[in-house]
């Protein structure tokens, strides 16, 4: 890992308008939790928190979108605007470049998603037995954000349409295909994250249950992350910068 590139990337991300937009977006589940607590006392708090707020809003939407924004921007923005040449014309091993970019993108993604998860869960579960839901989703979003970020970082070095391809993955593949065909869930980071949450949460199956087993989800997270990082490093080693005529 290269500390100079890590610090530069953090500075790039924090200064961008998209970061502010993601912070505002992360406040949405918190606001809904507040409205829920103010207005509806009839539903099961654990059920609503786990399935609607933490799964439906954070794991399904906020987590992949944040990882997509920061994962594709970490290196993709520099490739797009031409500044990557200043990093790649230095004697820095390519695996150090990828590691620095990945950690910076993960840190920013995790900070936003975790803050939203903790605030949303704490507000929505206030006054009832928590049943390990908060810790479960903290672990799920922490690990899930790493896998998503690695995946989207890889996308940014293999295609110039990383943002669009990432949106297709999140909304078409994970949002539609894996919902229709249960066999495809093994290739869904969202399902891995939910599997981790299910492994840690102390809830009944009626309250919250994931489609993938926790151990299988953890193994898949490890495999997908390792493959994505390896491919990203390999791609960056043979990355060409020049003028196509």
């Amino acid at each position, binding site marked *: 890992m290269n500390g100079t590139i890590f610090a*530069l990337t953090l*500075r790039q991300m924090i200064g961008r308008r998209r970061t502010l937009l993601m912070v505002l977006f992360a406040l949405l589940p918190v606001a809904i939790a507040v409205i829920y607590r103010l207005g509806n006392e009839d539903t099961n708090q654990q059920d609503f928190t786990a399935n609607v707020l933490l799964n439906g809003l954070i794991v399904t939407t906020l987590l992949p979108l944040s990882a997509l924004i920061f994962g594709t921007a970490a290196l993709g923005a520099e490739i797009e605007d*031409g*500044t990557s*040449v*200043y990093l790649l*014309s230095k*004697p*820095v091993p390519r695996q150090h470049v990828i590691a620095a970019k990945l950690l910076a993108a993960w840190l920013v993604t995790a900070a936003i998603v975790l803050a939203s998860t903790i605030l949303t869960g704490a507000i929505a579960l206030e006054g009832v037995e928590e049943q390990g839901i908060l810790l479960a989703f903290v672990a799920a979003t922490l690990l899930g954000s790493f896998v998503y970020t690695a995946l989207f970082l890889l996308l940014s070095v293999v295609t110039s349409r990383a943002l669009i391809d990432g949106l297709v993955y999140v909304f078409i593949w994970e949002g539609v295909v894996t919902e229709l065909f249960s066999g495809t869930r093994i290739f869904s980071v969202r399902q891995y994250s939910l599997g981790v949450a299910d492994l840690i949460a102390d809830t009944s199956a009626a309250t919250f249950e994931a489609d993938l087993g926790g151990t299988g989800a953890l193994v898949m997270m490890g495999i997908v992350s390792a493959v994505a990082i390896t491919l990203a490093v390999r791609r960056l080693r043979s990355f060409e910068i020049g003028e196509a005529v």
Partner: protein
Amino acid sequence: MTSQATVEPREEAPPERSTIELVNVSRWYGNIVAVNEISFSLGPGVTGLLGPNGAGKSTILHMLAGFLRPSSGTVRVLGEAVWQQPEAYRRIGLVPEREAAYPFLSGYEFVLLSAKLHGLPSPGEAAMRAVQAVDMEEAQHRAMGGYSKGMNQRMKVASAIVHDPQVLLLDEPFNGMDPRQRLHMMDLLREVAAQGRTIVFSSHILEEVERLAEKVLVIIAGRLAAAGDFRAIRKLMTDRPHTFTVRSSDNRRLASVLVADPSVVGVELDGERLSVRTSEFAAFALAAPRLARTEGIRLLELLPTDESLESVFSYLMKR
């Protein structure tokens, strides 16, 4: 008739100490050939890559910088391959053409970033030296987003020389600079070259190359059209066939006089328009007014018709 036989820049001997070597290098994108079977060797000093836009100059520079894999042939810088060799950047500095830099960094931070990424022992001191070398001390703490194009370019050069590279590659380095900045940058590059370093820069402007480069490589349509010191290239360009349009008080009689001059290859009289083809630009420019005066013909206009750089490149390509 031409003096081309005396100028064979393509056959010049390789430099005693080659720091850059390309052997039969080609690069294509799909079916399009950007660089076609180019070979040359360069030693220390300033070399200009001259050619029109899209000729393949940037592609060559990017291959030298290890950013493009040659489709065939070998590229060596300081005796070693550069493709997929990040360690080579310890001895190479690159100034890319694109203006992009990090707008949120100050100029000094940008150069410091480069020093740190090179792992220099005292990055702060090295950055300060590089900033002073490009005469940017006053503006060094301003954000680069507010820099003019010329200031941006100078900081890019500072970033590229912060680690004292033996080879410095610059892609269109004078773009956007005003004349004073241009002169200053030329002085700086001459100083760097005087320390025994190899500098290669690309340009599509003849005068820039003429003023700075000791050696010139003329690249046209992906091919090396000519190579040699600038005087040889300039002579080659000057001694090529030229066409003049002539207007006088008696075009028909002037045509008959001019055709007898040894510098004239042919004349064409089309109505009121007299075109004269010559193989010796300077000799004809002197002879025409003299002959006209001797014959008592009033010369109204003597205009070379093909002085654009494109026509020069076109001629070199056809040779």
